[in-house]
């Protein structure tokens, strides 16, 4: 088990806001800070726009981990989108946890447009953590229409 986890390359989707974290990730690039290749970014205007269903769909679609990131409190480009998002995640996370869905696989963070280094750290930490947790097979298994595909990959 240990060994197979070491070879395991997690698929991670990052849901980020355009104004802070996306720009922060751009800064990581312009600063040439290297990080793991496992994360792909989806750009949203604001964390307020990130639908909780998209996170569930990412898991169902085969993601092993998720990053959700936006502007720090009080820095939202739209004033309060991140505050609404934060409330949504507080409730959502609690429900998922009660249902036994692995909330450790969703990394929530605030990364500002100036925090290029923080973005690299968040990505690397998340990849490391998900690598340790292993593939999220539990969830993929209940997404039964994906069974064939999951089998063929293995």
């Amino acid at each position, binding site marked *: 088990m240990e060994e197979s986890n070491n070879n395991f390359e997690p698929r991670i*989707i990052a849901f980020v806001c355009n104004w802070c974290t996306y720009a922060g990730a751009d800064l990581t690039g312009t600063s040439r800070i290297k990080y793991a290749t496992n994360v792909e*970014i989806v750009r*949203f*205007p604001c964390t307020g726009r990130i639908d909780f269903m998209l996170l569930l769909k990412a898991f169902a679609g*085969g993601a092993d981990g998720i990053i959700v990131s936006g502007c720090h409190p009080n820095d939202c480009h739209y004033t309060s*989108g991140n505050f*609404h998002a934060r409330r949504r995640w507080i409730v959502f996370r609690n429900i998922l946890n009660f249902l036994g869905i692995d909330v450790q696989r969703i990394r929530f963070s605030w990364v500002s447009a100036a925090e290029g280094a923080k973005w690299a750290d968040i990505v690397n930490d998340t990849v490391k953590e998900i690598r340790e947790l292993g593939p999220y097979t539990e969830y993929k298994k209940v997404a039964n229409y994906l069974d064939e595909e999951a089998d063929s990959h293995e």
Partner: protein
Amino acid sequence: MSRIGVFICHCGENISATVDCERVAQEAGRLEGVEFATDYKYMCSDPGQTLIKNAIKEHHLDGVVVGSCSPRMHEATFRKTCAEAGLNPYMCEIANLREHVSWVHEKGEATTRKAIQIVTGLISKVQRNKPLNTIKVPVTKCALVIGGGIAGIQTALDIANCGQKVIMIEKSPSIGGHMSQLSETFPTLDCSQCILTPRMVEVAQHPNITLYTYAELDKLEGFVGNFKATIRLKAKSIDYSKCTGCGLCTTKCPNKKIPSEFNEGLGMRTAIYVPFPQAVPNKPVIDKEHCLYYQKGKCKICSKSCPTGAIEYDKPDEFMTIEVGAVVVTTGFNVLKTDFFPEYGYGKYKDVITGLQFERLASASWPTLGEIRRPSDGKIPQKVVFIACCGSRDPAKGIPYCSKICCMYTAKHAMLYQHKVHGGDSTVFYMDIRAGGKNYEEFVRRAIEEDHVNYVRGRVARVYEKDGKLIVKGVDTLLGAEPVEIEADMVVLATAGVASKGAEELAQKMHISYDPYHFFAEAHPKLKPVETNTAGIFLAGACQAPKDIPETVAAASGAAVKVVSLLSQENLVREPIVAVVNRCAPPLFSTCVGCFMCETICPYHAIEHEEIKDRKTGAVIKTIAKINPGLCQGCGTCVSFCRSKSIDLEGYTNEEMYTEVMALLNH
């Protein structure tokens, strides 16, 4: 079937050094819906853009994905390229292969794989994209300036001088604001009235400015470019078209013992009054609370004395609705009164006064004709103590912020006192001296060194009266907290600058935000200092935070430029990234059920109620949410909140985002 074009940029070697661009293009070319895929050294260069344009025309592309640098860099460039080739610009998506891939990963299979994945996600998204058109909102070419202090005056004049119309409303009978009350101004000691009154007159006479004094904002509806303001014109009881401003009435009025607001209670006025001799307009109003006729039903002396018969008693307040394209809020500030301070006698010692009252004592006009005479007995005080930071920087008093102007005006007061009372003795108790500003530090040094004002660093614990003297007890912290006791003839408190009365209510009427101290909030503390979060509403001056005159004037001119740039357009052109409530066939009309919970979620108050009516009977069938595209800024918070998924965000629709996520995961 879509016909998507994929263009992978090498960015010189910025991308191609770690990403196999050729392979990305090849693999993208194999994807369903992709008609054309290629890579090129510099896609943003002229030949690169021509390549895209030619491909769009040649292959009849209906969507484009450019794999290049960050969309924050060149999204606008490539969208324009597409538009030039006849493709709707919103059918173009940018895959960030530089900042998010090549610059952060080493060369290798995983890096190229990631690039392919990102491109794949966006190819799927762009297939769901809809052509969007920029939103045009017509602009009413007129601005409303609320408040006639120096901030409002400067804003109005700047806007008017650019050829735009301005309506200015001022709640008191004259414009001029706090600046008209000041004696001399730091750091040059020029007379406040001398520099202000010409501008007040200019406002009144400017062909592009319509001035309404004694008027307040009652309601503000609408949105940027299209506001509808209801103004309450408080009844002045005088017909200004007849009044010549001769002032006879004010000399005849029997009620002469009303504390004058302009003189901060240090002088008296009549019930029919002009606030000060240089008032604009220089015509009186009747203060109904103190007028004998309004209170007791008898008197009418002013009416009898008026040579033109201009007095009209029983006229109610009037309401006027105006249409404006922009609003500038310049409602200024207030200072705390002395009764706020129990330690300094709750305001019961007549000779403990505020800085604003001292301004009146030092003023050449009223009430002492520029002689410093203390309020209690009119004697010239030989010893004056100035206490800085009264309330300010004191969280215990609920005012943790610095009022900013007090250090400077206290130095000025002490200096004026020394100039006017030869041989007088003045002491300033201060916490820190904050004299940041052009010639400010020099000014304070002058007060200390040339005018020999005694500066003591320390707080005053108590002021009490004893044998006709005010005993000021404090400490000198620079001398090891040694107690200091001064027997003063007068004490001047530099009381904190606070938000003007009714600021909170006004902010709510306009839907702009305010801070915990009821100062209005700017949209961004650094980059949008005169904008509010509501598009089309701007701020200038001390309604935002305590500010001195130079800062206020600078902000006012800044706000004026923002207004002029708005009003000089025929139409406001906005990105079509806005939320929309769906519509469908009857009997549903929309899947929106009208719970209006999205109303509280929208930071821009962009959600309105739309009544769907029966075409024949006019009966309301259903009330649904409607998003005002003029107000919506496209954050999409309402979209992910809506339970029935009745709202969607153009450019980031549920379908587009869902498809992108699933495509990234190869579904």
